[in-house]
């Protein structure tokens, strides 16, 4: 038999469990009631403040009226939400208006006391230069959400060039995924020349790739004096070389075709050859036809695949070459791959279907 002590222990556990269950019940109902009241209160405050906030945004003279209404911390938070909503919906920068109502400082003080993603997000969306220092501090955080949100905020701030460059330098060395860095970099809205300047100064492979990729989607890449400056990166590390191939291809300047062809012919690395195969789709078919057809016989499947994909992208001329390739190639694999692409093309499919009819 169990000793009385153990029996008492079980009885005690039962009492504890009863109390814990009752507390849980209270907690569940408390949460429901709290949520309902909170939502109603928020809606009410938001409804009251909205006309005044909108009035202040449209006419700064109404600042005193708004300040009078912001009687508590809660009212200020609702006002911040309302202004952020307005700013996002109408694509306007309200940073000065946030600053004048002292909202930026309010959030900075909050964040100095405690790291909080909710406050950080609000601060980031205010686009205020006053937030620069604290966002720079938070951008060093090991927490990806905090760091990403800070960089996102930094990218929205209109500030001096040196400050922007410092933020970008920190962004490049962060642990954020490369493609996401490029995306944030676009938010910084840098001119092509500014990116070129940063690229020249950059020493890391990762940084160089990021800057080249950020530049290659800008319209200025088509200016020969700019694209020429990228040619020297073709001799660098494999990843930089691939980025430079993509950028020069995006320039659509036919003078680079011979250079790219040379790279293809002498390159051992298949990833670089794939980059050339993909990049050649940006040029006119006549200039790249021979090299693309040569690529369809490459030892690497992915190069062959992308070469045929580029040929398809050339339109009617490309399709005719592909039909020839499909019918004439002695290599069954090449012939099959060409057929696969033809079969996946809607125009070819419809044409063949009509012929059958």
């Amino acid at each position, binding site marked *: *038999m*169990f000793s009385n002590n*153990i*029996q008492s222990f*079980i*009885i005690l*556990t*039962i009492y504890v*469990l*009863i109390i*814990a*269950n009752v507390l*849980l*019940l209270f*907690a*569940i*109902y408390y*949460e*429901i009631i709290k*949520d309902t009241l909170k939502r109603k209160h928020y809606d009410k405050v938001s409804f009251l403040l909205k006309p005044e906030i909108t009035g202040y945004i449209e006419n700064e003279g109404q600042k005193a009226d708004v300040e009078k209404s912001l009687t508590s911390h809660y009212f200020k938070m609702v006002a911040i939400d309302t202004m952020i909503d307005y700013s996002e919906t109408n694509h306007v920068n309200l940073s000065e208006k946030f600053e004048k109502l002292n909202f930026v400082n309010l959030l900075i003080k909050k964040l100095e006391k405690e790291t*909080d*993603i*909710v406050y*950080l*997000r609000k601060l980031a969306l205010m686009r205020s230069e006053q937030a620069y220092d604290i966002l720079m501090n938070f951008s060093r955080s090991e927490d*990806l*959400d905090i760091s*990403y*949100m800070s960089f*996102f905020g930094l990218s929205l701030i209109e500030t001096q060039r040196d400050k922007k460059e410092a933020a970008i330098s920190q962004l490049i060395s962060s642990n954020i*995924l490369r*493609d*996401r860095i*490029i*995306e944030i970099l676009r938010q910084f809205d840098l001119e092509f020349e500014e990116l070129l300047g940063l690229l020249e100064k950059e020493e890391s492979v990762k940084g160089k790739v990021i800057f080249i990729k950020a530049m290659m989607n800008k319209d200025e890449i088509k200016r020969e004096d700019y694209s020429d400056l990228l040619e020297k990166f073709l001799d660098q590390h494999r990843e930089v070389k691939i980025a430079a191939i993509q950028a020069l291809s995006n320039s659509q300047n036919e003078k680079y075709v011979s250079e790219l062809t040379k790279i293809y012919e002498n390159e051992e690395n298949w990833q670089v050859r794939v980059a050339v195969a993909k990049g050649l789709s940006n040029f006119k078919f006549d200039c790249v036809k021979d090299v693309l057809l040569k690529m369809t016989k490459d030892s690497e499947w992915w190069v062959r695949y992308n070469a045929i994909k580029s040929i398809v992208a050339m339109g009617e001329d490309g399709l005719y070459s592909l039909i020839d390739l499909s019918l004439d190639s002695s290599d069954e694999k090449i012939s*099959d*791959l060409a*057929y*696969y692409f033809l*079969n*996946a093309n*809607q125009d070819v*499919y419809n044409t063949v279907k009509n012929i059958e009819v």
Partner: protein
Amino acid sequence: MNIIVNGIAIYSQIIFVYFFGISLFYVFLILISSGKLTEFIKLINNDVTIISNYTKPISVVVPAYNEAETIIDNIISLLDLNYPEFEIIVINDGSTDNTLEKTIDYFNLRKIDVEINMQVECKEIRGVYGSFVIPNLVIVDKLNGGKADALNAGINLSRYPLFCGIDADCIIEKNALLRIVKPFLIHEETIAVGGIIRIANGCTIREGKLLEAKLPRSAIVRFQIIEYFRAFLTSRIGWERINALLIISGAFGVFTKAAAVNVGGYSTTIGEDMELTLKMHEYYRKNKLKYKIDFASDAVCWTQAPDTLKGLKSQRIRWHRGLTESLIRHKKMMFNPKYGTVGMLSMPYFFLVEMIGPVIETFGYLLFTIAIITGSVSKFFIFVFLMAYLFGILFSLSGILFEEFSYKRYSGFKEISKLILYSFLEQFGYRQLTVWWRVESFFNFKKGSKNWGTIQRNAFSKKEK
């Protein structure tokens, strides 16, 4: 008579130690889950992933066997996902209904030729169907080989480095892929992430979108809702925190293709989802490779739960057989310090609680009945049962509270009160019934087929009525 009394006394001591031990451990899991849930509540409305267009492309693999009722809704919901780059590969695993024909007709598909990169074994693929209008949708028709085989075919056809396994009777929330991929962006060593599964019965779903979450009328489904709260909101979050999560649900989970290929893809077993997760744990720990198996508590997938006892029985027997089979296959990890928290905590827990727990519990009920008949019920025995009952209520209420803290899908006094009531009722009848099915399955785990265990599905749109 004395033998019976003594036997009952000894067993009540065993059952006390057992229940008290596992319940304390479960309380520990709840406590560590609550920490993570608090972080999650703050993050859910401030999620940076939602801001960004850059993620990793995903191949969504949907194995389907006789899913004609729900397949169209499912595909529509998948096509509507908020995700920059993904492809949908539906695998028709030799359905005997018109799943394939219905899908081809609805999406106006045509047969295409594709080169298949066979990385894991699967049965013969009869044809691949694609669309000009929806280039990221592919339907694969293959010989029947079971769910694992269908998933393997999907892996072979997938183009992207991540693949997501989704059941054909599920509806994925619009941002669910963005949320489930986040751990892959944070930790490079992440190899698998599971999403949270919720029950769609009673909810209003139109054209693949969940419009309103409501409690269903069926008591069986209500009990299951509470079970799902317990499983996903308390225990799985807890296991993930100590990198010892043993199940990435087959209904909604994302894996790196490389990791799945490393372990040979899915195995043809009844619990292919648990088996794959266990294989990954074993492979990565054995080879001392860094890895992380995560759980995204904010990535939501809605599924149809069985609403008949027959359907529920079949599902529970299948689950338990899968669990038993996988634990036995990987028994060498059990209590083996080489396998870290998996070998020392989760494997023993699943063995003691999930696998043989029902047997211990059933034996307890049996002795209790004998004690009542023979008039030898001791106070101690009653106290132990009362304690186990109260622990059961505590776990269910914790699940409901966590739901209220986080998703608040069943908001409102009335709905939550109903759930609370059902968490009390669950302990009388429903629990014993499911425990009995698991006992049956435990002793017969080698019997039965390894094929699809489908339950009767209803079209999602009918749910509106």
